């Protein structure tokens, strides 16, 4: 599940449980706010996108899966940060997704909130990669 992650990434590995989505959010929020120049609004956008991606990853598992897990990783370079959320659930191909009236809010939000979002098949499962263009902090603050 972790083989394809870059060697210098920060990785959070959680049980696929709704009570842990807040932990994923604070991790990303701490990294983003101490390491990158981001407005409060863009920081909120990133947090919400992470929340949506984790919710979908958790929901990708059926009720009878043994020890389902979700990985949230952070990777950065000079121009951008990338957050990946990986599950080994039922799989998702956005190109095949049927547009519906009621659902589909989470995926749509992710696409709007970050600068780039793509879904990769994981065999099994899915990785959603979300990136935001932003410079590094000049002086890191906390």
């Amino acid at each position, binding site marked *: 599940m972790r083989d394809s992650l870059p060697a210098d990434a920060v990785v959070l590995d959680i049980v696929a449980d*709704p*009570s842990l*989505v*807040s932990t994923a*959010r604070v991790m990303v929020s701490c990294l983003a706010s101490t390491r990158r120049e981001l407005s409060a*609004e863009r920081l*909120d956008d990133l*947090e*919400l996108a992470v*929340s*949506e991606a*984790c*919710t979908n990853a*958790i*929901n990708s598992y059926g009720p009878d899966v043994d020890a389902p897990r979700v990985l949230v990783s952070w990777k950065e370079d000079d121009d951008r940060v990338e957050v990946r959320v990986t599950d080994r659930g039922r799989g998702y191909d956005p190109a095949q997704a049927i547009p519906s009236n009621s659902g589909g*809010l*989470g995926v*749509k*939000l992710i696409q*709007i909130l970050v600068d780039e979002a793509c879904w990769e098949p994981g065999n099994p499962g899915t990785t959603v990669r979300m990136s935001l263009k932003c410079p590094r902090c000049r002086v890191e603050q906390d």
Partner: protein
Amino acid sequence: MSVDVVRAGGSCAVLVVSGELDVYTAPRLRECLVELVSEGTLRIVVDLNGVELLDSTGIGVLVGGLKRIRTHEGELALVCAQQQLLKLFEITRVNTIFSVFHTVEAATAAMAQT
């Protein structure tokens, strides 16, 4: 996330929500809405000004609450003055199905006229 129910007289109640409304906490708000409607509270104001994060699951619970209350010919309004949430309501077009007020007073006054 916490939900405080403030009775506003008659069949009206104000739900003061604070904290983070996500896949983990939204079910508690859903239960609260279901209970209020089932006991006949058909004018509900949900005050979101203390909410720090609202995600699609939270929005789903609000929309579900609205649908439920409308089948009983009641009404549900939102209170929110936060830019981040107002932006979210716009993106998701939730502002086209809800009445959104900046203050609880404005919302309850509008409710009283329905």
